[in-house]
């Protein structure tokens, strides 16, 4: 098992290499460049800018230089944010985005499973109907609608939660709205998924066996139902986490969260090559690691899977 994971971890390297190489050349294919302005930069200044960022060198040389830097985890200077290195931008934003992402995922998973269990065990009772309706809303309402609605209700009408900004301004309260908004569709989907799979497992033969053995209903659910019923949820964790990571780019703007999502959007719009590259690398790493973790959890839960 350990060997399997070391191998998986090592296989990340060629993947990353390809991602980095492709991105490096692709983003330079997009029209425009980091120094394009509505008010054109005078030629003399432009030449100096190009020199400053080694953009006057042949592309392949730039590529080699970049690969060298990245091996030392040095992403270089940002073209847009002159005062900060790309590493500084990532170092500031990544912990914020990661905590938002992880908290949202935890909310979605814990909340989704809890609601899934409640509604499965109360199938066709009011608890179930409420849960199913909430799930339908969660799945069908997009983030950029849900966010402002929650802001309006909790920030402007009830005035109990901040509309935006982060922990340094409002304390932990600041996390609630963005995390809930971000988690909501995945919470809803997980609730639906776990409800369905719990119901399916409840009908399975081995649950009948467990009951025929005289186990209490609670023991049946906790010991016999959940492990099997949660496997589809675990499988969904990979896509859910990617979705949350992508969604957080929207949510960060809506709630003024100082993560890496907002600089990502800005860097793409402004052709901030170094920053785009770093964001691509960081997001790829997050997704790759997330999938690896999901694999591990899956392997731990399902004894039928063996890693060689």
């Amino acid at each position, binding site marked *: 098992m350990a060997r399997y994971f070391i191998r998986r971890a090592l296989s990340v390297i060629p993947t990353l290499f390809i991602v980095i190489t492709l991105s490096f050349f692709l983003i330079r294919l*997009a*029209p*425009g*460049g980091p120094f*394009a*302005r*509505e*008010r*054109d*930069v*005078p030629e*003399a*200044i*432009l030449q*100096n*800018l190009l*020199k*400053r960022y080694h953009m006057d060198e042949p592309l392949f040389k730039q590529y080699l230089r970049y690969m060298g830097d990245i091996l030392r985890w040095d992403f270089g200077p940002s073209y*847009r*944010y*002159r*005062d*900060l290195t790309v590493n*500084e*931008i990532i170092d*500031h*934003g990544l912990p914020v985005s990661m905590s938002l992402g992880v908290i949202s995922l935890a909310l979605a998973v814990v909340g989704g499973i809890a609601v899934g269990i409640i509604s499965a065990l109360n199938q066709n009772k009011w608890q179930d109907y409420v849960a199913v309706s909430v799930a339908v809303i969660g799945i069908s309402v997009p983030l950029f609608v849900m966010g*402002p609605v929650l*802001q*309006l209700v909790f*920030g*402007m009408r009830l*005035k109990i939660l*901040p*509309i*935006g*900004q*982060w922990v*340094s*301004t409002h304390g932990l309260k600041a996390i609630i709205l963005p995390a809930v908004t971000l988690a909501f569709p995945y919470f809803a989907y997980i609730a639906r998924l776990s409800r369905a799979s719990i119901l399916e497992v409840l009908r399975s033969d081995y649950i009948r066996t467990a009951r025929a053995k005289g186990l209490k209903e609670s023991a049946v659910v906790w010991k016999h139902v959940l492990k099997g019923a949660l496997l589809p949820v675990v499988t969904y964790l990979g896509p859910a986490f990617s979705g949350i990571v992508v969604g957080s780019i929207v949510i960060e*703007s*809506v*709630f*003024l969260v*100082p*993560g890496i999502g*907002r*600089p990502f*959007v*800005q860097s793409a*719009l*402004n*052709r901030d090559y170094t920053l785009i590259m770093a964001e691509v690398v960081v997001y790829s790493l997050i997704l790759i690691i997330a999938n690896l973790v999901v694999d591990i959890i899956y392997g731990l839960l399902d004894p039928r899977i063996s890693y060689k």
Partner: protein
Amino acid sequence: MRKILFALFALLAVAGLSAQEFTMVNGAEPTSLDPHAVEGVPEHRIYTALFEGLTINDPRTNRALPAVAESWSFSKDYKTCTFKLRRGTTWSDGVEITADTVVQSWLRKMDPKNAFQYADLPAMYIAGAQEYLDGKAGPESVKIRAVDKYTFEVQLVGPIPFFADMVSHYAFAIVPLHAIEKYGTDWVKPDKMVSNGPFVLSEWKPQEKIVVVKNNKYWDAKNVVLKKITFIANDDINVGYNLYKSGAADWTEAVPLELMDEAKLRKDFHVAPQYGTYYYIFNVTRKPLDDARVRKALAMSINKNDIVNKVTRGGQIAANGFVPPSTGYTPAKGYGYDPATARKLLAEAGYPDGKGFPTLSILYNTSSSHKSIAEFIQAQWKENLGISVNLLNQEWGTYLDTRSQSHNFDIARAGWIGDYLDPSTFLDMFVTGGTQNDGLYSNKTYDELLQKSRETSGNERYQLLMEAEKVLIDQDMAILPLYYYVTQNLIDTDKWDGWYPNPLNVHPWKFIRPKK
């Protein structure tokens, strides 16, 4: 009783304190806090809190007010400007600002190795500076000097009577070279930054906020009332508007287009003419846009009043001329809404009832308001001229490339806001080969008029510029002005004093204070 009094007193103290703190929704995360690297509005607002140049803008008229310079004078021919520096003005670390600081600061801005955007602005006006910027001469060629410790002299390329107004612009910033030398690019970080404005940097949380607090070393500190200003970084105008409405911010600029009607009803929504124009560029090298009659027909078939009243709805002013009006300057008359004449002109150009007119496209960068405007114009041209156009939207980087590098467009949306209050900031753009002349317009008379304007001053100069605009608009209709921008600000002026709507939308922080 004493307890109650004490509590009341404490309450008052707290209320008083919080009223001395100000929060604003500042727009996108600043790209730099280095005054010489500033190029956008959010950065500019932070700059005006932290730094002062030789002059600052009057909060009502935007004309020059004394700052680091306590007075200035021009030579008779307006080609030399001499600034008298205030004695004893220091940086927040106590180091004195002298004429030499100003010289070294301006040279830093124009040093070609530093490659600062906007370095061409001072270089355009200071004698010998262009050569330095182009790398053709050393810094000694730049005609600025410290006459003595407190006297700073600039020789200009021509008579420039508005030069004192201009040096309030961040392109003429004065920077703490001693700190820059010590810390390198890190000098702008909170624990290292040294500044000379009414405030000093206290906190910088990237993508979140910048906090500045009162600078006790500021020369006019006794007249600064605010103790703290928080600039919230924000790139979603809806949340900015909500922050303001909920009371979490005291000032915001942007109002979402969908909420414009709601905002307009508010007492604290201030709309005022801005020194800027929204216009369409014709690519005059393309048929049939190379024909002035066609360009005029296109201009005359748009009801611009409908655009501002029904589409943008934020108090903008329909524009037939290009340069916004200002004291002593009357813009070109241009052409109003006149579909009948438009049809006639189009027929004369060989397209009666729009027959045979090729399908052109309107290029704009992705945004709902640019889209709405383009759709409106598309419909007007269809209705009034019987011609069809396509809409082409591109995201910012691609749009800029299409518009200014490849020039691969028919008609493109554009907008320009003057850097300082002078018509030349608009008209300079369209000289042959000008960096912002994206429609590739070229007219000898126009070029000559502008050249001449640089060698004259006062009323005579304004006449030449007005003449030039007539050529650009009335004669050639090289670009199609649509409306003059307005400044839109949400700030409660019943609560805050010292904030006034003004054409450059520049609001020096030292004047802003709670109303008594």
